[in-house]
């Protein structure tokens, strides 16, 4: 069980959080993007062997959505949200 640094509450057990997937590309302008660009935005998600930025929701806590950088090889949280210890 990960120990996740919530910027508001501090380090808490993973069971208090809901995973929100990796941080993908910014949403393109749907009226300007080509079909190809739109499909890639929807379907291509970062999945590196190494650090990945991902969204977490402190659902059973303060309700904050925030991101961390987690190393997928070791679960090491290499970068915590701003303001956390």
């Amino acid at each position, binding site marked *: *069980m990960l120990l996740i640094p919530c910027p508001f509450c501090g380090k808490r057990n993973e069971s208090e959080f809901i995973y929100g997937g990796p941080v993908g590309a910014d949403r393109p302008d*749907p*009226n300007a*993007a080509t*079909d190809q660009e*739109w499909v890639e935005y*929807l379907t291509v998600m970062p999945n590196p062997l190494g650090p990945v930025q991902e969204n977490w*929701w402190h659902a059973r806590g303060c309700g904050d959505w925030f991101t961390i950088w987690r190393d997928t*090889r*070791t679960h090491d949280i290499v970068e915590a949200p701003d303001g956390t210890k």
Partner: protein
Amino acid sequence: MAQSNRRAAGGRIDRNQPLRFTFNGNSYEGFEGDTLASALLANGVRVTARSFKYHRPRGIMGHGPEEPATLVELDGEDASGNRPATTVPLREGLNARSVNCWPSPEFDLGGVNQLFARFIPAGFYYKTFKWPNWHLFEPSIRMAAGLAAAPFKPPSKGHFEARYAHAEVLIAGAGPAGLKAALDAARAGKRVFLADEGTEAGGSLLNRNLTISGRPAMDWVADAVAELHGMQNVTHLQNATVWAYREHNLLIVNERAPEQGSILERSWRVRAAEVVLATGATERAMVFGGNDRPGVMLASSVQAYVNRWAVNVGTRVALFTNNNSAYAVAADLAAAGIIVTAILDSREHIPKEALDLVPGLPVHPATVAAGMFGHKRVRAVLAAPLSGGASKWIKCDVLAHSGGWNPTVHLWSQSRSTLQFDEDLAAFVPDQAVQPCRAVGAAAGDLTLDRIIDGGEDSAYGIEPLWRVDVPGQRGKAFLDIQNDVTVSDVHLALREGYDNVEHVKRYTTGGMGIDQGKTGNINIIGTVALQKGLPLQEVGTTTFRSPYTPVSFGAIGGLREGWGLFPYRHTPVTQWNKDNGAVMYEAGARWRRPGYFPKSGEGLQDAVSRECRAVREGVSVYDGSPLGTFELKGRDVPRFLDFIYSNIMSNLKPGEGRYGLMLSEDGLILDDGVAFRLDEHRWLISTSTGHADAVNQHMEKLLQTEFPDWQVMITTVTSQWNNATICGPKAREVMQALDTDIDLSPQSFPFMSFREGAVAGLPARVVRVSFTGELSFEINVAPRHMAELWDKVMEAGAPFEILPVGSESSHVLRVEKGFLSLGHEVDGTVDAYDLGMGWVMSKKKSDYLGKRSIELRRSGGGKRHELVGILPVDPNQKIPEGAPLTPGGRKEATEGLVTACVWSVVNDHWVGLALLENGHARQGETAHVRLKKNVIPVTVTKPVFHDPEGKLLRS
């Protein structure tokens, strides 16, 4: 004779506390301090098990969690299965059985399998899956190859418990290295959590006659334990196995039989700043013909039984080793008066320090064991010189063997830290840590006590690895994995058939699986693969170590989360009223308990539901709609936020007005449907389906916090802040008037899809005109503290109108009659609003909203879609099962849709249904066919509405 093998004195047992126990129906006696295994050996029980596949007779081979052979099932109040006999503390009245034999291990009918051994090689199961026919063999294989069955009932007394703890230092193992680490940390004032799997502290010192600073080593242990117990900052648990090493230094500890009376096992989840693994080392087996015979035991186990449990496991012991450690065993045996008939050593040059331990004993250098004589007990070992000279039989009733020592790196490896093959130790040892963790003592490869206690030089352990005996004239099967009956030839077969990665070898042969997870044999499998492939062991690598380190009961993992406590139900304030009034209670999404229907005495489901439906359509009813997800949204940017998350426009609603809408996800799928009401300029109320409330909340919060952090929208979940009684039916307005309200109920001033605040029955209320049934409805929302009172007043005011409480069954019928959607029925991951005939809900005016682009993209390709239609069975009394497929002409071919719902419609006197049908919108009036297994049901395709198609009634 009782305890014929028990020594007269010595050992860490209490001869004043005899314990009676039963094994396979026979009664025996042991002493306090015994394990089941030591007590069986004390009583001279040699055959204690039958093997997994061949049903060969087996005895006790180890003395701890490494035991591969003797698994038992415990009966009675502490019922559990597949327990290694070496880890079961003896207690009065213990009742144990061997797991894999019938009728008994001494006489086991499954033993006939040995005759067919060559027909059940490695991969046997997989091959049988393919040919000739798995189902032919399955019943007999399942019966023969079983381990213990799960107990039928949870333990009759006591309960399981879970606890969290935080530590600055967690130490796994209370042997010499662990105790020393604990003392160091505790004296430095750190918060220490020390857990050890044994019944008492000491680790390997319990089994040996060693000294520390000139005193018996166990005196040092007693002093260390006493000092630790005197410190406030130390938690010391025995009988507590650290079985899992998870992310971020979370370790899970299973404490068995804590001192508090009613607790069977306690699961500790310990988050530690630093972890010290003092898990010791495990002796590994030698691999030679007949190495599974009862009486072939690990050398350290023979030593443990003699020293710790005062059991002479044999009278004439031969040893077989490739390292120095077995010489200390021989010395202890000789000192105990046991005859050592031979020490077979595969090494040509035996170090002097080893020979000095065994003056006068017959040592045979460069000699291996190449076979065992004796079926149910060992009688002699075949000593074969490696030089190729004549082999000879040497008498013995126990063969003690040592293939070397493996640092117990399970937890280290579970933490994802790396291993390195150490050529000097011929073993995998800890290398790079990836979490704040270090290994100490034997777990780190420091195998001698001097080095652990004093940091002194490591005296020579002198191993020369021997992964398997390979001499001409070897007799019998040589087992790599005793528990799973995996032999050297099985591994060779796997390699020949192309399974040459060590993980594949494991899965193909099952070597290293099971209860013991190959603690004594895995390294020999790796060595055998390495020899066969001509690779160094480092390159072959190990299989992945996974938790649990030793078996853990499900009860301990679950802790107190059992029965209703596992996942509690949610109730509304009228649950009790519902039960008192005969409701059949259902679970209705998100763990809400709500009434399914209210049968009168002797009334069946269908009659009750039809009666409730009739009340809604012809009279008046009341329904508890409280579980519906509701959210209040507040802020300047709510209108544009709602326009983004709903497919239609919400921002042009005026205060007091509401609208039905669909929420789509970015990929165009329907996420939820519901209604949005504008309470005033900046306050909105939206509802979601009961089961999706949490998902919608997550969806909205994520958008607001990650995509639009500058938008001013505040979301408050108010599902449980407002409960409601929904009065529904042609006479609903009359009941509302009877309830006494200051809200003007006329359809002109309070039209459909609007919202009013006021007093109802003297209670502050929000009344909403929505309808999920197609009839005139008033949803009266009040605070939960007023709900029960409101309910009573509704029943009272409705009595003259014969108001009926109705449940979710009739709601389902009524919504099907109206063609209203139910997520999970009509809506799945393939359906969009156009398919549902709801193109009107997809705004053309908005340039962007969630899902718009994706739907356009998906629809641009054309193609046939499954579209929502109504279906009427040609025979009005023909019911259709929900989920039934529709096929062209009812033929047995690819489906063209499915029936999503089918109900008995009281207003139509007919079964009516909804279906998703290929090109359905264009096929109205045609006949389609439901294909069941044995028959075909013709149905007429209609519009998906069977009652009040213009919606006059719900607007009335």
